[in-house]
C-alpha cells in the first residue's frame, strides 16, 4: 500500500489469475465452441504442389454434393474485394519485390498448403468431402527448397513474378570491421544451419465470420493475436468503413507468433460470408497448422569472429541467409532481429552482417516465439565457446571479459532499429546475472562431478548462455478504465490474450491504484469495438505498453474520483486517499465516498449539476507511447546427459536467472519463462519442419514433428533480478520470449561439454539423436568403444 496516495499493493504479487476458473471448468469459449443459427462450415482446397501454375479448377462435382452451399475460387471472392493482395508487408526499405499474399491463389501456387478454393457446406465433414471432389489441374514448376541454393545463379524461381529469389538484402554494419580482423590475435569461423520450426499453439487457428444485415456490420471472431490489425486488413480489402467491421477474439488457445500474422483464411472466410449471406466458421486442422500457418527459424550463418589474445571480441562479420518461404508477411524483421540480438550482453566493437532473404516454396515465415533472436544468440554463444576452448579459458570467464558493465548503462549500440532509433540497452546487470546463475547451478564443482560420471561411462555436461531481449515494442497501446453506477470496474484494452494472463496483469495494475480485488475487475481485451485503437500481442510488449497505459488510466480515474469526492465530502483533494475502493480523508477511516457512489454521482441526475463541475462519468483513458525498447536479459545454465550410443540427450537440470525489471505478477512471469524455455528445448532437440526436394512437407503431424512432452521438461530453477527500466513508470520489461532465446545456446553448450573428449561441435539445430549420433561417430575415438 502506497502511503502517500493510498491504493493497493497488488503489483509484484503472485495473485491468482482472473482467467482460471472458467478455463479449469471447461466453460471457456474458444473459437470452435462458437455456434449460431445457420452457421455453415468451411474448408479449403489447398495446393498439393510446392510450385505450379493453375491450369483449371473444376468445382462442378463439389458444388453438386448435397449440403454444399458454395465453392469459391479467387475470381468469385474478388467481387467483394477492392484489391487482389492483402497489404501485409511491414514497410521495409530493403524489400525488392511485392510478395503480399492473396486470400486464394490466383494463377500461381507457391507452397504446399496454399489455399486455392473455399468450400462452404452445412457441416465440416461435407465440406471436406466436397473439397476432395474439386478437380485441380496444376502444372508443376521447378521448386526452391533450400535458401542457399535458391540464391545461386541459375536457380529456379520460387515465384514467377520475382526474377530472382533475393527478396531483400540488408545489413547490420558498424565500426572498423576490417581493422578488427587485421589486428586480431585469434579468429574463429563457423557455419551454422538453424532449421525451420513453428509456434504450434495447441489450439489451431480459426475464424467465424458473420455479416449482420440489420446493422450492416461484419463481425469476425478470430483466434488472433492482433484483432485491430485484422480489422485494418478487412477494412482495406473489403472496402468497408471502420464502423462496419468488428473483430473479436474469443478465448485464444496460445499464439506464439503463429496467430500474429493475418493469414489468407482470415479474409477468404468473411469474403465468402458476404457473398453467401450467411455466417461461416473455419477451423484449421493440424495438417493445415503445419502447412498453412506461418513458421520460422530457418537461417544459415557463415560467420567469423576476431578476438584479442585475452579473449575480448574485436569484431564479427559474416553472412546470414534467411529462408522467407513463399511470402514476406513480416518484411525483413526476423533476420534483422537475429543479427542484432547476436550482440547480446557483450561489447562488440565492430560488426558487419550481410543479410540475404530468399524466397522459397515453403510456407511463409513470420515471427515465432523469439522472432529470430534465439538464432542470433545461438551463434554468438557458440563463437564464444569456440574461442574459450581455443584459449583454454573457462567458458564463463570469456563471457565475463566481454560483458557490458552495469556502469555503462544506458549502453548505445550504433545500429538503427525499425523505428529509426538507435539500439540502447536501458538497464541490467549482466555480470551479476551470470554470477548468480553459475552459483545456483554449481558451476564451480561441476568438473569433479563430470569426472566421476565419466569414470562410470556417463557423459554429462554443463552449458551456459547469456542473452538480451528487446521487449515492449511500440508504438503504443491504449487502455480505458470505467466505473458505472453498478460499481463494476471495467478495463478495456487493445491488448490481447492468448494465455499470458493479460487480463490478470491489467486487473492487478488497476487494482494497485484503486485498491480493489483484481478478481472483481472485468477486463475486456481483443475486441475492436471496445477500444478504438490497439495493436495486440507481439514482441513481449503488453505488460510494458498496456500495463503502463492501464496504470495511467487508473491514475487519471482516481484523480477524477478524488476531485468529485472532495466536493461530496467537503474535503480538500490533497487530504484524500483511496482505500479498498473508497475515497476517504487521510487518517479518518470511515469518512469517505465509495467509487460506486462517486460513479453514481458522476452519472448525473436530470437537472442537477455534476459534482465539482466535472465532465460526466467515472472513466478515463490513456495511451502509452513507448520511447524505446526495454531490454530484458538473462543467463541460462543446463546440465545434460548424452547417450553416445543413440545420440539421445536428457536434460537433468536447468537454471535461469532472469531480469525483466519490475514484475507485476512473478508467478505469471515464471510461467512465461517456463513455457519459453521448453519451446527452446523443443527447438534444440526435436522440432524440425522438414521438406523433401519437391517441397513436400515430411513432418506435418504431431507424431512426426515432435513437441516436448512433460518428461522432457527439465526441473527449472528460476532466480530473478529486478533492474527497473527508466523507460516507463512501472519499470517493467517484457518476459514472454526470453526463455526461448536462451535455451538452444545453453543446451548445445552443455551437449558439447558432455562430449568434450570427442571435441564435438554442433552447428545445426535441432540436434536430434540421429544428428548427434552422426557427429559422435564422425569424431569417435577409441577410448569410447570396446
Amino acid at each position, binding site marked *: 500500500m502506497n502511503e502517500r496516495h493510498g491504493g493497493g499493493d497488488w503489483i509484484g504479487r503472485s495473485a491468482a489469475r482472473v482467467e482460471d476458473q472458467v478455463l479449469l471448468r471447461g466453460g471457456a469459449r474458444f473459437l470452435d465452441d462458437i455456434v449460431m443459427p445457420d452457421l455453415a462450415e468451411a474448408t479449403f482446397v489447398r495446393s498439393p504442389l510446392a510450385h505450379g501454375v493453375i491450369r483449371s479448377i473444376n468445382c462442378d462435382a463439389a458444388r453438386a454434393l448435397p449440403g454444399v452451399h458454395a465453392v469459391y475460387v479467387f475470381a468469385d471472392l474478388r467481387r467483394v474485394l477492392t484489391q487482389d493482395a492483402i497489404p501485409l508487408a511491414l514497410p521495409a526499405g530493403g524489400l525488392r519485390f511485392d510478395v503480399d499474399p492473396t486470400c486464394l491463389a490466383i494463377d500461381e501456387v507457391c507452397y504446399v498448403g496454399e489455399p486455392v478454393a473455399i468450400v462452404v457446406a452445412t457441416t465440416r465433414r461435407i465440406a471436406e468431402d466436397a473439397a476432395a471432389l474439386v478437380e485441380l489441374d496444376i502444372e508443376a514448376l521447378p521448386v526452391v527448397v533450400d535458401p542457399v541454393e535458391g540464391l545461386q545463379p541459375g536457380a529456379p524461381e520460387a515465384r514467377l513474378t520475382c526474377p530472382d529469389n533475393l527478396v531483400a538484402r540488408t545489413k547490420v554494419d558498424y565500426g572498423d570491421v576490417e581493422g578488427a580482423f587485421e589486428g586480431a590475435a585469434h579468429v574463429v569461423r563457423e557455419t551454422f544451419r538453424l532449421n525451420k520450426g513453428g509456434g504450434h499453439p*495447441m489450439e489451431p487457428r480459426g475464424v467465424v465470420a458473420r455479416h449482420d444485415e440489420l446493422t450492416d456490420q461484419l463481425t469476425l471472431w478470430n483466434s488472433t493475436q492482433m484483432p485491430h490489425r485484422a480489422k485494418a486488413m478487412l477494412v482495406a480489402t473489403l472496402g468497408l468503413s471502420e464502423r462496419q467491421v468488428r473483430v473479436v477474439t474469443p478465448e485464444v488457445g496460445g499464439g506464439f507468433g503463429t496467430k500474429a500474422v493475418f493469414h489468407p483464411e482470415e479474409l477468404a472466410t468473411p469474403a465468402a460470408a458476404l457473398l453467401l449471406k450467411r455466417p461461416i466458421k473455419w477451423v484449421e486442422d493440424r495438417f493445415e497448422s503445419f502447412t498453412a500457418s506461418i513458421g520460422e527459424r530457418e537461417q544459415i550463418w557463415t560467420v567469423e569472429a576476431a578476438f584479442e589474445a585475452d579473449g575480448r571480441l574485436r569484431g564479427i562479420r559474416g553472412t546470414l541467409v534467411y529462408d522467407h518461404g513463399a511470402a514476406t508477411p513480416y518484411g525483413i524483421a526476423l533476420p534483422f532481429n537475429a543479427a542484432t540480438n547476436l550482440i547480446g550482453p557483450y561489447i562488440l566493437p565492430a560488426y558487419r552482417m550481410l543479410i540475404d532473404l530468399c524466397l522459397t516454396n515453403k510456407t511463409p515465415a513470420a515471427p515465432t516465439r523469439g522472432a529470430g533472436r534465439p538464432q542470433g544468440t545461438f551463434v554468438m554463444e557458440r563463437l564464444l565457446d569456440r574461442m574459450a576452448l581455443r584459449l583454454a579459458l573457462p567458458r564463463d570467464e570469456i563471457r565475463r571479459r566481454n560483458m557490458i558493465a552495469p556502469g555503462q548503462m544506458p549502453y548505445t549500440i550504433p545500429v538503427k532499429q525499425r523505428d529509426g532509433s538507435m539500439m540502447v540497452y536501458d538497464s541490467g546487470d549482466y555480470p551479476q546475472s551470470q554470477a548468480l546463475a553459475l552459483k545456483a547451478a554449481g558451476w564451480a564443482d561441476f568438473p569433479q562431478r563430470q569426472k566421476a560420471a565419466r569414470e562410470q561411462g556417463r557423459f554429462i555436461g554443463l552449458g551456459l548462455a547469456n542473452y538480451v531481449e528487446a521487449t515492449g515494442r511500440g508504438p503504443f497501446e491504449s487502455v480505458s478504465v470505467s466505473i458505472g453506477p453498478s460499481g463494476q470496474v471495467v478495463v478495456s484494452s487493445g491488448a490481447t490474450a492468448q494465455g499470458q494472463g493479460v487480463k490478470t496483469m491489467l486487473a492487478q495494475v488497476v487494482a494497485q491504484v484503486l485498491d480493489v480485488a483484481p478478481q472483481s475487475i472485468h477486463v475486456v481485451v481483443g475486441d475492436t469495438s471496445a477500444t478504438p485503437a490497439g495493436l495486440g500481442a507481439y514482441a513481449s510488449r503488453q505488460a510494458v505498453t498496456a500495463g503502463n497505459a492501464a496504470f495511467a488510466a487508473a491514475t487519471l480515474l482516481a484523480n477524477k474520483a478524488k476531485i468529485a469526492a472532495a466536493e461530496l465530502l467537503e474535503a480538500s483533494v490533497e487530504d484524500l486517499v483511496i482505500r479498498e475502493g473508497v475515497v476517504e480523508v487521510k487518517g479518518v477511516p470511515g469518512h469517505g465516498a465509495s467509487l460506486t457512489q462517486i460513479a453514481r454521482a458522476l452519472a448525473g441526475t436530470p437537472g442537477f449539476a455534476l459534482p465539482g463541475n466535472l465532465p460526466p462519468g467515472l472513466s478515463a483513458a490513456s495511451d502509452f507511447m513507448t520511447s524505446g525498447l526495454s531490454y530484458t536479459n538473462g543467463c541460462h545454465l543446463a546440465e545434460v546427459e548424452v547417450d553416445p*550410443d543413440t545420440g539421445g540427450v536428457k536434460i537433468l537440470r536447468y537454471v535461469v536467472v532472469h531480469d525483466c525489471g519490475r514484475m507485476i505478477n512473478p508467478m505469471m512471469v515464471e*510461467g512465461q519463462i517456463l513455457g519459453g524455455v521448453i519451446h527452446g528445448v523443443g527447438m534444440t532437440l526435436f522440432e524440425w519442419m522438414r521438406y523433401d526436394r519437391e517441397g513436400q512437407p515430411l513432418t506435418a*503431424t*504431431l507424431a512426426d514433428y515432435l513437441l516436448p512432452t*512433460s518428461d522432457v*521438461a527439465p526441473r527449472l530453477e528460476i532466480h530473478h533480478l529486478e533492474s527497473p527500466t527508466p523507460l516507463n513508470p512501472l519499470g517493467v520489461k517484457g518476459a514472454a520470449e526470453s526463455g526461448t532465446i536462451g535455451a538452444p545456446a545453453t543446451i548445445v553448450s552443455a551437449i558439447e561439454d558432455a562430449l568434450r573428449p570427442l571435441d564435438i561441435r554442433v552447428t545445426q539445430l535441432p540436434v536430434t539423436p540421429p544428428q548427434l549420433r552422426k557427429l559422435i561417430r564422425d569424431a569417435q575415438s577409441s577410448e569410447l568403444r570396446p
Partner: protein
Amino acid sequence: MKRDHISFIFRGARVDLAGFSPHATLLEWLRLNARATGTKEGCGEGDCGACTVVLARASDGALDLRPVNACILLMGQVDGAEILTVEDLAEGNTLHPIQQAMVDHHGSQCGFCTPGIVMSLFALQQSAQGPVTRPQVERALAGNLCRCTGYRPIVDAAMESCSGPAQDRFAAATALRLAALAEMTDSADVFVGTSTQFFAAPASEDALAALYLEHPDALILSGATDVGLWITKALQTPPKIIWLGRLRGAFTAIEAGDKALSLGAGLTLADASAPLITLHPDFAEIMRRFGSAQVRASGTIGGSLANGSPIGDIAPCLIALGAEIELRRGSDLRRLPLEAYFIAYKQQDRRSGEYLRRIIIPRPAPDRAFRAFKVSKRFDEDISAVLGAFHIGLAGRHVIFARIAFGGMAATPSRAPQAEMAAIGIDLDAPATWAEALTAITLDYAPIDDARASAGYRTLISRNLFLKTLMEISGIPAEITRISGFEVPHAAE
C-alpha cells in the same frame, strides 16, 4: 439376444443411442450433439490429448477409470461405460482438488490443453493407491501436450492433488456408479444400423465368427487407435464396423502358465502390460513408452499385431521370444508363428472372415537372456525409429542360441537371420569374437530413409543395440548410459 442401440451414462443419466453413424467419433458426439465443448480438439489423431475424457467401466466388481482420446474413439465404443468430461469435475462453485491445484500452481495458461490434462490427472488420481511419484505423473501426462506452461506447474499440481486413494465425491459415489453401470450390463449382441451400414458389437465369439463370415467386408474394430486415424485423417467412412470390445472369455483372458503366457487379442495394452512384464522386465519400458496412457487404455494387443505395422513395438519383442498367434474363422482355429503372419508391407496372412484371437508366448528359459530397446527421438509418446529385441541363449559364457527381431528396419517386423547365425559361438569375455555378428546385423536389413531417421542411422543403431545387449549380458554395465533405456533419476527434486 440383440440390442439395436448402445447404452452409456452421461452427466449422470443413462443414454440409449441408436441414431449415430458407425464411424462417428465420441468427440464429434460430445461437441456437436451434446454441445459439451469443454473437451477440445487439438489434432484429431491421438497425439495431443486435448480431447481426453475418462471412461468408467465396471471390471471384476471394481470401478475402472481410464483416460481415452475422444477424437479417435468411435461413438459405439462407449457402450456400457460412463463418460466423464471436464465439466463433471467441479461441484457447484467448488473446483475439484485437481482443478484447484492447477490454479494454485499456475498449471494453465491459455487453457486449451487444460481440460484434457485435468482428465488425465483425474484418471491417475482415481486409480492411485498411495502417493504419486513424479515419473508416474509424467507417465500419465505422456499423451498430453501443452505448449504454454513448460509442464512443471502441471506436474507440481499433480504431485499435490493426485495421491490416492482418492477421497473426493467420485470415490464416495463408487457404489452408485457401479450400480448404474450394472443396470446397463447385458449379454446382448449389439447391432445398430442396417445390413449395409452398421455398428455391431457381438457379445460372444460365436456371434462374432458368424457375423464376420456373413460380412467379411466389415471392418474389425478393436481399440481404434489405428482405425480412428483412418477416419479422421484419411477421411474414410467404413460403412460396416464390427467392434470386438464386448467380447470376454478367451478373447480377453490372461493365462499365465509356467512355460508360456497366453494373452487374449482383446486385452488392452494397459491390461497386457503386467503379464508381459512377467516375461521380462524390459517390457516395462516398452509398454510405458507405447503411445500414451490414452492409447494404451484403448489400443489392444491384438490390434497392435493385426495391423501389421512395420514400426509396431510389440511384434519384434514377441517374435524374438518365439510367439505364436491363434486365428479363428467360423469355427476353424489355426495357429502360426507370429513372424509368418507378416507377409509383406501391410499384408498379413489373414483370410477373409478370419480374426486374431490369442497370442501364445513361451517364457524365456533361465539360461536365456532377453533385451528390448526402443529408440526414438523423444522418450515418451514417439514412434520408434528402431526397436530391437534380442533373445540370447547361453552355455556358460558362450552364445548358443540367438533370436533377434527388429521393427523399423524393414517393411514388416522381421528377424535378423545372418546375425542370429553369426552370434552362435560368441565368447562374452572376448569382445573380438563379437565383430562378425555385429557386422552381420548391418547386412540383415536394408532400412529406408524417412523423416524419423536415415537408413544409415537405423543401421548404425541396430548394430549399437546388439552391442549394448552383448555388453549388458556379459556384465559390462552399459545400463548406465541407457538414456533411452532406463529412467535417469531427476537430479534436483
